């Protein structure tokens, strides 16, 4: 049985766990803990080590989806989780501009771990306070080449589209020679 993985990263409360939950065929293995900090109490629980979802591709291949903890104090997990990934998805909460800088920093950190293809998912696009995609691109300082995709993590179709776009990016980068098959 061959296994491959993708990583879903992003700031605290960006929607990473929800994203994985939408497509995983197993109940997401989550390491959530109650939030202790008052400042971060925008939700009850947060991921402290990783989330873990699975999609069986066929009888010989399994895709694992790993969600990273969003809080900086658990960033020791990031490098461990990024090892051997096919690519990664940076989730950004479109309605919380205060997290854009953190999202940008996380993106750069993951690029430094592994120069694999990635896409950015502008989550919570269904919320009234969500920023427009074009404004987010400028705010996140993403070049036009980087895929910034509107997303609603609880919507399976939107999540599928993000995953597919990442896979297309992997193929495109293989064709342009920027990514080679791991030896």
């Amino acid at each position, binding site marked *: 049985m061959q*296994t491959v993985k993708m990583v879903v990263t992003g700031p605290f409360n960006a929607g990473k766990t929800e994203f994985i939950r939408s497509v995983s065929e197993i109940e997401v293995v989550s390491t959530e803990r109650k939030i202790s900090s008052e400042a971060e109490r925008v939700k009850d629980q947060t991921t402290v080590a990783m989330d873990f979802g699975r999609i*069986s591709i066929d009888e010989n*291949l399994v895709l694992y989806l790993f969600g990273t903890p969003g809080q900086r104090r658990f960033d020791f997990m990031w490098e461990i989780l990024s090892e051997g990934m096919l690519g990664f998805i940076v989730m950004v909460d479109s309605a919380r501009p205060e997290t854009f800088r953190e999202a940008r920093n996380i993106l750069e950190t993951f690029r430094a771990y592994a120069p694999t293809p990635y896409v950015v998912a502008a989550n919570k696009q269904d919320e009234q306070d969500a920023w*427009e995609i074009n*404004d987010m691109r*400028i705010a996140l300082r993403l070049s036009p080449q980087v895929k910034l995709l509107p997303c609603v993590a609880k919507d399976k179709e939107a999540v599928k589209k993000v995953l597919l776009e990442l*896979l297309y990016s992997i193929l495109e980068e293989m064709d342009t020679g920027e990514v080679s*098959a*791991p030896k």
Partner: protein
Amino acid sequence: MALKGNLRDFSITQLLNLVNVARKTGTLVVERSQEQVYVSFREGKLSYAHDGTDAASLTMVLYHAKKLNAAQVRIINERSRGMSDKELGLLLINSNYLSQQEILTSLQTYYLSTVNRLFTWGEGLFHFDNDLLPPKDKITVRISLENLIIEGSRKMREWEQLQGEIPSLEMALKFSQRPGVNLRNLNLNADEWKVISFINPKNTIHQIAKATNKNDIEIRRIVYSFIQAGLVDMVRPEGVPVQQPVQPIQFVPPVQPRISLPQGSKTEFKSLINRIITRIRSI
């Protein structure tokens, strides 16, 4: 869709850059306690700005720019009752009071000074309204944002540096023990003297700022200059208990499943990706 947030998280420099790059048209409204600032843009250029709910009249702008004196303002206001700023501007030009250039330069200076105030705001709620345009009777200009952004970035850098030097306004100040410093021989301006008069280990910098009506950047700038000159030292305010550092909770990361990277040729790798694509499409 919204373009809203807080300057604490998304600075005015970043906002102006966004407006400039996206060539936006509309009005940025920034609010902080009782203050409100409106900055209008047309295709990414600054066109109009005012603070408060009432826009300053043209005569007041020209008075502040020292283009009109108080007596002239009074006479013009009496004669131009009911006139719009545009009509008044034409009247002033036609009656050779002022040139068109003088009026435009005065307005530009006023609009820029309004925007410049925002660079000193550490926080404030903002939203960008695409449908809110300057009132039709007001004179608009076209000012490129690049210089404003560069100048703003410089101010923000200064702000960051000051925040680095004085990370918390909850600290207090005390006069340094350095012998030979005679305050009477110091060359301080009125604002600095005001701050000096409040220096006491019982007063936090925040309290001094409030008492002297200074914003965060102004008080930091003054305190930093005092520290640099060796006049004062930062101390913990008297009566405030020392906080014990919190021990971080140690989490043992769970063992992650063994992942094997796809081995073999580029063709095999492509085939693997295509299999995943097919599967995900079918979920």
